[in-house]
């Protein structure tokens, strides 16, 4: 179920005088059963990249392969149905995707569309709602009466209900409170545990460090680096400035400590790591 991009270029309005090239020569492999985070500053091409994962955008040149399905510029819309059943997408501000009269109907929409029987659709919707912690007493409410955090969960359940092998999320944690963020990270870990491939875009490096197996760094429509969080976040501090990215908070704090004469044996990437290092290496007298 791996995903590969081979020589992928993408332009809006390709072939016209207004052609606007966004992605350049993308060659990546996204491994199965792993969580891959895509990071990069706003406008670096992250959202454009992930819209290729379920054929919302087709490469202008090159090809995207998802499992045994190949998407090129010539792929017809009809051929994409199979791909869309395989890939669940949660867009930025997923609450904008809600539309039905009740929470349950909203989540059932996807499975029904992919040909589930009503009973079957209902069951999968219910288990998806449980997975994202939407309390049962809300299932018959209008999705528009919910709080922002709950709406987000319902929209995610909608993408998960048809049990896709691949789950793609565009900044799923934006706007959630600390508890909601922790639950989201747990959900991502659970999805991986159940054998799914997860791709998510994030601006929060702490989330990337805590849950991702692989990191893809986008810059100006190119892949700048791909590697494990440990590889990527141990690069030189000047490199982070050049791609306009932050270190995880613990790394930022360690850099400031270093500027103030406190050096640590290596760069901590998490709060726990930083605290442990300070407790061991710099006992405060």
């Amino acid at each position, binding site marked *: 179920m791996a995903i590969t991009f081979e020589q992928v270029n993408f332009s809006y309005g390709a072939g016209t005088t207004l052609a606007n090239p966004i992605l350049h020569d993308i060659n990546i492999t996204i491994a199965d059963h792993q969580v891959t985070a895509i990071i990069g500053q*706003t406008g670096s091409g992250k959202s454009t990249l992930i819209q290729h994962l379920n054929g919302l955008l087709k490469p202008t040149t090159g090809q995207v392969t998802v499992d045994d399905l190949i998407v090129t510029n010539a792929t017809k819309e009809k051929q994409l149905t199979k791909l869309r059943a395989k890939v669940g997408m949660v867009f930025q501000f997923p609450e904008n995707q809600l539309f039905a009269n009740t929470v349950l109907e909203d989540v059932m929409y996807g499975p029904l569309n992919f040909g589930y029987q009503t009973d079957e659709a209902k069951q999968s919707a219910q288990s998806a709602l449980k997975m994202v912690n939407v309390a049962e007493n809300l299932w018959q409410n209008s999705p528009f009466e919910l709080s922002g955090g709950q709406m987000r969960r319902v929209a995610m359940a909608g993408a998960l209900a048809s049990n896709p092998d691949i789950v793609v999320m565009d900044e799923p944690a934006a706007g959630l409170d600390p508890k909601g963020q922790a639950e989201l990270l747990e959900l991502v870990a659970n999805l991986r545990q159940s054998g799914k491939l997860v791709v998510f875009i994030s601006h929060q490096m702490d989330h990337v460090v805590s849950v991702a197996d692989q990191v893809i760094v986008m810059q100006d429509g190119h892949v700048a680096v791909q590697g494990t969080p440990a590889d990527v976040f141990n690069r030189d501090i000047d490199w982070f400035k050049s791609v306009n990215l932050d270190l995880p908070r613990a790394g930022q704090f360690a850099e400031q400590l270093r500027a103030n004469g406190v050096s640590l044996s290596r760069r901590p990437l998490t709060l726990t790591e930083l605290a442990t290092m300070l407790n061991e290496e710099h006992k405060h007298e």
Partner: protein
Amino acid sequence: MTQAITINNLTYQYDDHELFDGFNLSIEAGEWVALVGHNGSGKSTLAKLIVGLIVANGGDIDVFGKRLTVDSINDIRAQIGMVFQNPDNQFVGATVADDVAFGLENIELPSNEMPQRIDEALHTVGMENFKEREPHTLSGGQKQRVALASVLALGPKIIILDEATAMLDPEGRASIMKTLQNLKAQFGSELTLITITHDMDEAALADRIVVINDGRLIIDGNPDDVFSKSQTMHDNGLELPFAGELTARLTVKPKKYLDERELIHWLSPSNK
């Protein structure tokens, strides 16, 4: 001291749920108050009650001494500007300048006074070079600064930002925080600022932090006081700023709450 907002014995329920039951809070003119709580704690509902977007079941809300009623609601709203979470849901104009002009047209400002007001407001938020830009070409942080300018142009005494940075990238978030600090420096006691947030780095900028949960006031104090109560914060679904979370995990801790800069100093050799 003049009270900007006084909330007295407020009750509000929806469906069968009693959200506020005898809630009290007063905010002085010129204060910057961060209203914090987890999603669903009632903080946005409180903001909507203050501007009369929803109606309380009981109790009183006074804004600069004037009781909020059906008759006073328009006068009160004229003193309060609000900026909401999603920058894309609050644009009406075809250009940045048009967007700021929209509010001014609504209050029937003479058209010869408009250009100056628009320029001043955009200048205050650092968006004066974007006047003719179409809103959809702006970044999230820039959009929120325009939304803030649209509110500022109307000369409000109180501005409420309801999770206005929650949807922004780190750069956009930093630009809004900087803008708010500039606003306070420029307007001082003329402007009362209420920021509703669950981002503690943002809350740390305020003069005062009010923590609410399920419609109840949990803690009310200055940032140092509030952040020294780490257990209470965690119990109410909130975190401390990074420096506070780190301090909580150190075996040897400073005697009082230190912000990031202070903690780094405390840890540095010059302090040993």
